[in-house]
Structures are given as C-alpha cells and as structure tokens.
C-alpha cells in the first residue's frame, strides 16, 4: 500500500549523502537501551534493524530507563501501567523477548547522577554479554529531550566502563568479567538540522517495515490518533479526494493504516538515497572504533578493525 500524500516536510531541505550499505554482524544477543517505552519504534530507528537482527537469529532485550508515567493522557499511575503493557506488545511484535525497566522517572533524569545510570547498564552488559548495543546517539546534537541525552551518554560510558578491569570490581565476585561490546548502533531524531551524522545505511525488508509500522501504533496510548485520520479524510473530502485503502475503515483503523504508510514512506525515502528499497541510517561503531590509531597495527595481526 502506498500513499503519495501525507508527508510532513520532515525531509525537505536537508542534503543527504549516500552511505555505505552495512551488513550487521552475525551474533546471539543485542540490547536496545532507550529512555522511553516508545523509543524503539521511531521512523529513524531502531525497529527495522531489530526485526532484521531477530530474523537472522538474534535474541533481543529492550532496556527502558524510565517508567514513562508522564507520557499519555492518563494519570501518572495509569500511564505507567498502560505504557508498559503496550511496549511489551510492541517489542514482541518486533521479535524482542522482554522489557527490562530501570525505574527512573520520566523527563526527570537530568537530576539523576550519570554514574547511577551507568552502573546499572554496566551490570547488564557484563551479565548479558551483548554482541550489539543500540541506543540514541551519545554525541548527537539537537535532541531536546533530557532523558535521551542523559541515557545516550550513560550507554557510551557504560560500554567503556564495562570493559575496564578497575571499574565496578564487585561484579567479579559473581564470576562476571570485563567485557567490551563489539558493535554499537546509534540513531538520532533528525527533524531539525544536523541531529545526527550517520555513517552507514542498513537495508531492511518490506516485512521489517510492516513490523516497524505496526510497532509504532501499538503504543496506542501515545501514538494512535483516530482524530488525525478523521481530519485527513475531512480535508481530502473538501478537495473531492479520497484514499481507497482506508475507505470504510473506522477512524482508529484508518489511523493505523496511515501511520504504517507514513513509516513505509520514510523507510522508502531512506532506501532511495542508498540504492535499495527500504533502509535505516545509523552511526555504527565497530569493535575497535575507539582506537583508530591501532587499525593498521591490528590489520598486521590479521584482525579486521
């Protein structure tokens, strides 16, 4: 299903370079660590990549920093419960197994010490030994959400600290060891300016895109917007136009289809920039990204950095 209308001018005016098509590494486990219940399913990431990794055999856990009690039209207590339930549904739709909540307060993590958040993530990394960690971009610009900035930096710092023998040595009493996460994928909202400067494009399939669209609106409490569908239909009707694909559907069902179509359109636009049907863009950091000066030396040892 394709729609030509219904595109906010999100991509207008920006100059995009063609990026290398990147094949995610084989592996067993990934952690997607995000501030909020719905941050796995934005147009800019990470749902398509998640679906692709799961399809290739990965197990994935969703780590959520806050309880999302502010997000939605209910009371704090209601939002907390509803958002948790819906994110479980949405991440399972993508093939992830569970949600690990770190229990911080929504939109209030600026006042939480960085090292408190980092310590929690270090323990998860050392216990689960993920091949891949995904999150917001720790060095991204222009993210106006305090939880996004806070979490992203804590993730990057946790990746460093988890690998160091002198950091959190109490973990070693459990038989855990220093561990370096080999692959990192970061995304960033790019709806105003140079929010993120990705370095790879990852191809995703039509099926991945469909799952991505569905996971988007499965966060019904904050995303599903029947009034939007009604407004779109009313506006088109005034111009004597209509969309056959949503004819006869309820406003709620029409909203689902329109949101899926929007996600499809975005994935198609990104794909077109990189010569494939659908894609997502990431800032990817490989196993030796922190040691650019050692790459030649490592190649000499037969290691591909």
């Amino acid at each position, binding site marked *: 299903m394709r729609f030509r209308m219904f595109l906010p001018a999100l991509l207008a005016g920006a100059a995009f370079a063609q990026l290398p098509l990147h094949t995610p590494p084989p592996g067993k486990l990934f952690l997607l660590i995000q501030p909020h219940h719905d941050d796995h399913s934005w147009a800019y990431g990470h749902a398509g990549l998640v679906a692709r990794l799961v399809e290739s055999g990965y197990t994935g856990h969703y780590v959520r920093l806050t309880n999302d009690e502010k997000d939605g039209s209910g009371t704090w207590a209601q939002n907390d419960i509803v958002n948790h339930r819906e994110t479980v549904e949405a991440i399972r739709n993508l093939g992830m197994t569970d949600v690990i909540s770190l229990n911080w307060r929504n939109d209030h993590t600026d006042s939480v010490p960085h090292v408190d958040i980092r310590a929690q993530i270090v323990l998860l990394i050392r216990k689960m030994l993920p091949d891949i960690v995904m999150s917001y971009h720790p060095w991204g610009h222009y993210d106006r959400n305090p939880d996004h900035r806070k979490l992203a930096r804590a993730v990057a710092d946790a990746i460093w600290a988890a690998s160091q023998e002198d950091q959190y040595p109490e973990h070693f009493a459990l038989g855990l060891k220093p561990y370096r996460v080999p692959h990192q994928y970061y995304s960033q909202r790019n709806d105003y300016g140079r929010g993120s400067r990705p370095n790879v494009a990852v191809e995703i399939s039509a099926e991945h895109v469909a799952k991505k669209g569905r996971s988007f609106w499965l966060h019904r409490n904050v995303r599903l917007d029947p009034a939007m569908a009604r407004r779109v239909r009313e506006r088109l009707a005034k111009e004597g136009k209509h969309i056959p694909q949503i004819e006869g559907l309820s406003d709620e069902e029409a909203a689902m289809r329109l949101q899926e179509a929007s996600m499809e359109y975005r994935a198609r636009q990104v794909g077109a920039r990189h010569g494939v049907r659908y894609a997502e863009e990431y800032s990817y950091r490989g196993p030796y990204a922190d040691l*650019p000066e050692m790459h030649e030396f490592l190649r000499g040892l037969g290691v591909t950095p």
Partner: protein
Amino acid sequence: MVLWLLLAMAASLGAQERAVLAVTAEGEDYLLYAGGTLAAMAKEGAAVYVVCATACSGEDEAAAKALGFRRMDSLGYRRGNLAGISPTELRDRIVFHIRLRKPAAIFFPNPHAEYDEGFDRLHAGMAAEEAAFTAAQRNLQPSHAVVDLAPHVTPEWYFYAPPADPRRRQGEAGEPFVPQPKVVDIAAVLEVKVKAASLLRTAESRLAAELERRMNRSLPGQAAGRLYAERVRGLAKLSAAGTAYRAAEEFVYAGVAFQIPAAYRQP
C-alpha cells in the same frame, strides 16, 4: 575591564619564563594527543606543568620527565569517576593551578569532540575550559587573593582529543577568531614521544589485556610490549594525513586574538 584584560595578557606574554599547563584526565591522555607539541615547547625552553585530574602514578611522572616537563601534579580523583564528582570543585582546583603557574598556553581535553568514549576526558575538559575562562575573573575564588594568587588570562588554548571524528577538521562556523583546527608538526620530537609513551607500562598492559579480550586470542610475543609505541606512531600518522607533515598532532586552537572582545577587533 578590557584594558585590564589586555594588560594582564601583556604581562603574561612578557613573563620571564614561558609556562605551559596541560590538564589531563589520566597520565596517558595529554601524552598521546598533545605530548609531542608540549615536548617541542619544552625543548624551546617552556616550563611545562601537567595537572592530572585522577591519580597519576610514578610511571606517568617518569613519562612526563622524559618529555622534558617540569612537574606533574595529581588532583587524586578516582579513574572512571570524574562524572560523579563536583564539577565546580574540579574546575576551581584547576583555576588554582592556572593562577599558580600563570601559563601562556593551556592544553586540555576537548569537551566538544565527538566519538570520544573517554568520559573522564569529557569532564576534565569541561572543567578545564571553564577554568581557563574563570581563572581570569577577579571575583571568582576570592580566597585566592589571600594567598596572592592573582587572576590570570591564558592567551592560548589548545583543545586536544582522540582523532575519532571523521569531520573533526571541518572546524566551527563563525567569525575568524572562534577556535579553529590546527595541525602541529611533531616529526622532530616523535621519538621522544614514543619513548615517553613506552614508559606507561601499566596502561600498556591494560590495553594489551583489553585487546586480547576483544580479539579473543593472545597478542604475539613482542607486540604487547610495543602497543604504546604503535599507538603514538599511529596517532602521528592519522593526524598528519592530508598535510605535508610526516608526524603530527591536531588540536582545536584558540589563540591570542580569541581573548579580545569582538568589538575591539574591528578596524
């Protein structure tokens, strides 16, 4: 205010001995990313002082000595934990060193650099950048006046960082006097830097263990003992790429003109 600023700058420029202050998170950072430039300054007669935000070791001091530096002082914070301490205390302790040494140039980790995983560098860099600015403010840390530590304007600022961001040389937009990328030829002191870095045995064995874990195999015989020499040579080459130099270090640099308010720079 401006007259005072210019006088203070003239005083520091005309000081008998040129002092240079390098702020570092741990013993290896300033050495890896700025050690050659600082060694060249020491060779030309500058007194180079290093302030280490964590607890630098005897090895670190030996390396600083090998580079020809005057002295290394540690602030003693725990490695990996600069994000968890008072940023104001860290800043004000660096202010103390600035007022004590009255440097003509200061080197510190670039807190604006992207893709630097060293969060100790980020926090030491933020504190040092603020300190370089606030050390000149008369009303900051009035207790310093009691011990005759006067406000000091540091005319030259060198921001250093691992060369991890592919776009690091693009510079910032804006008028000509905002900090700009600067590449320094260090070919003449490269071997001194290699030798000094090779003294960092503890850091080197930590890196060896780290690489072996990542590669999931052992490093070949001699490789573990020359990792820091390789790092220094690799950095020199990366930073020299695209320039006429054989070995280099790179900075974001803010020189004397940066300190003069824009209004007084108009013709």
